[in-house]
C-alpha cells in the first residue's frame, strides 16, 4: 500500500511541460538563427520624437565616429566596427547606455526619457517602409 502512495518522480504532465518548454526555446533559437535579409545595405536610423533625425549606412569599414544627438539630453551615439550604441546620455536610468552596441537588422536601442530610438534597418525599410518607390 505504502509504495503505491509514494509520489512518482516524474508525472506524465510534467514531461509534457518540459517538452513544451524545450520546444518553445528551440523555436525561439531557430527564429533568432534565421539570418536577417543580408542582401543590400544596412542602415542605422536615429530618431527623436519619432522623426528620423539621422540615417547612416553601417558596415564594417566605416570609421569610428561619435554623433551628438539634439534631444535635450546630450546623448552621444558611438559607432565603431559595424556596431552602434549610446555612449553617454544624461538620462536618469542610463538603461540606454547599458544596452551596449547593436548591429543586426531589426534590433534597436531605446531611450525613453530622451525619446530617442536607434534601430538597424534594411535599405528598403527606412521611413519609406511600406512604400514601393520614391519619385523626386
Amino acid at each position, binding site marked *: 500500500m505504502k509504495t503505491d502512495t509514494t509520489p512518482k518522480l516524474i508525472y506524465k504532465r510534467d514531461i509534457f511541460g518540459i517538452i513544451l518548454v524545450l*520546444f*518553445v526555446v528551440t523555436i525561439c533559437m*531557430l527564429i533568432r538563427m*534565421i539570418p536577417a535579409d543580408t542582401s543590400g545595405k544596412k542602415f542605422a536610423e536615429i530618431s527623436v520624437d519619432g522623426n528620423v533625425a539621422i540615417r547612416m549606412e553601417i558596415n564594417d569599414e566605416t570609421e569610428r565616429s561619435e554623433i551628438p544627438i539634439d534631444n535635450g539630453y546630450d546623448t552621444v551615439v558611438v559607432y565603431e566596427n559595424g556596431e552602434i550604441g549610446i555612449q553617454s546620455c544624461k538620462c536618469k536610468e542610463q538603461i540606454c547606455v547599458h544596452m551596449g552596441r547593436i548591429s543586426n537588422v531589426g534590433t534597436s536601442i531605446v531611450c525613453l526619457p530622451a525619446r530617442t530610438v536607434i534601430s538597424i534597418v534594411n535599405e528598403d525599410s527606412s521611413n519609406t517602409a511600406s512604400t*514601393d*518607390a520614391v*519619385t*523626386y
Partner: protein
Amino acid sequence: MSVGIKKITKTICMILVISVLLLLFGCDTQGYKFSGFGMDCVYSFKLYSNEDSSLKVSNRIKKEIENYEKLLSAFDTSSITYKLNARADISGEDLGEIINIINTCNKVSSLCSDRYSVVCGALTRLWNVTGDNPVIPSNIDILKAVALCKSGLVSTENGNIRFLKDGVTLDFGSVGKGYACDKVIQILKDEQISDAIVSFGGSVLTYGTKGGEGWKIDIRSPFDNSKAGTFNVDNTSFISTSGGYERFLEKDGNTYHHIFDLKDGMPSSSDLASVTVISDSGVLSDALSTACFIVGMNESVKILDSFDNTSAIFITKDKQIYAYNFSGSFETQSSFIFKGEI
C-alpha cells in the same frame, strides 16, 4: 485524463502559433531586386517573379540600358544624339526612336508656347549647371542661346532629322529616364513578368498590380530629404517628378537650378516647388512634369487637359499640395497641406 487533453490542446495551439510565425518569417515575397548606374542616375528594379527568369531579365535590362545611353546621351561621342548635334554622319542609323521622342515632346512644347522643348541644347550647354566649373552666363549669351531653342528649328519630316539653323542642338536630359521606363516595359512584357517596380532616379514605372495590392509611391519633399506625401497607383503607370532642388549651382548666395524657362533662358521661377505627373508613357510624364514645373500650376492645367489618362500632383512653394485628375488616395505629411483637386 482531462488534464492530459488540455495539455495536448495547449501544445497544439502553441505549435500552430509558432508555425504561423515561422511562415511569416519564412515566406517573404520580397521580389528580385537589382540596381546599378545608368542614364546619369541610379536605377533600381524589383521584379515579382521566380529567381531564374528574374536573373535572365535583369541581365537583359542591364544590357539594354547601355543602348539607351547610346541613343540619347549628349556627352557620349558615339551616341546618335551626340552625332546629330555635331552634325556628324548618321547615315544608316535608325532615327525612328528619336523622332518619336521629339514628336511627343513637341506636342507638349506647342501647348506651353515653347517654354519647354528638347530643342534646348544651346542653352543647357551654355549654363552647364552640372559641369565641373559652372559660371553664370552673360545676358547676351543667354539671349543668343534662347534664339536657338525653338521646337520649330528641328524638322522630323520623312523620317529624317534636319536642323534648320546652325548651333541648334537637342538635349534629351528631361526625358531620358522616362524613355528608359518606356523601353523597360517592353522587356517586362516580352519576358512575361507579372509585376515589377522600376525607378530611374526619381522617374518610376509601376508595372502590373502587385498581385492586386497596388503600389504605394512616396513623393520626396522639395524642401529637404523627407517625404511630402504618399499616393497609391493601382496598375501600370509612369510617374515623373520635376523640381529645381536636385541639380543646381550656387553662386553668390543665389541658386540656379537645372530647369530653364526657354522664354528668357533663366532657371524657371513659377509658384511650384515640384510637380509629379502620372501618365501612360514615360517620355510624356517626363516632358509634362518639366513643362508644368516651368509654367506654374494654373497654366499646367491647360497643358494637362490635352492629354487623356494623365494625373498630376503639384507642390507649391508655400507647401500646399494640389491634385489634378487624381483618383487615388493621398496621404500628406504634417508639414504640408493637401488642398484637393485644383
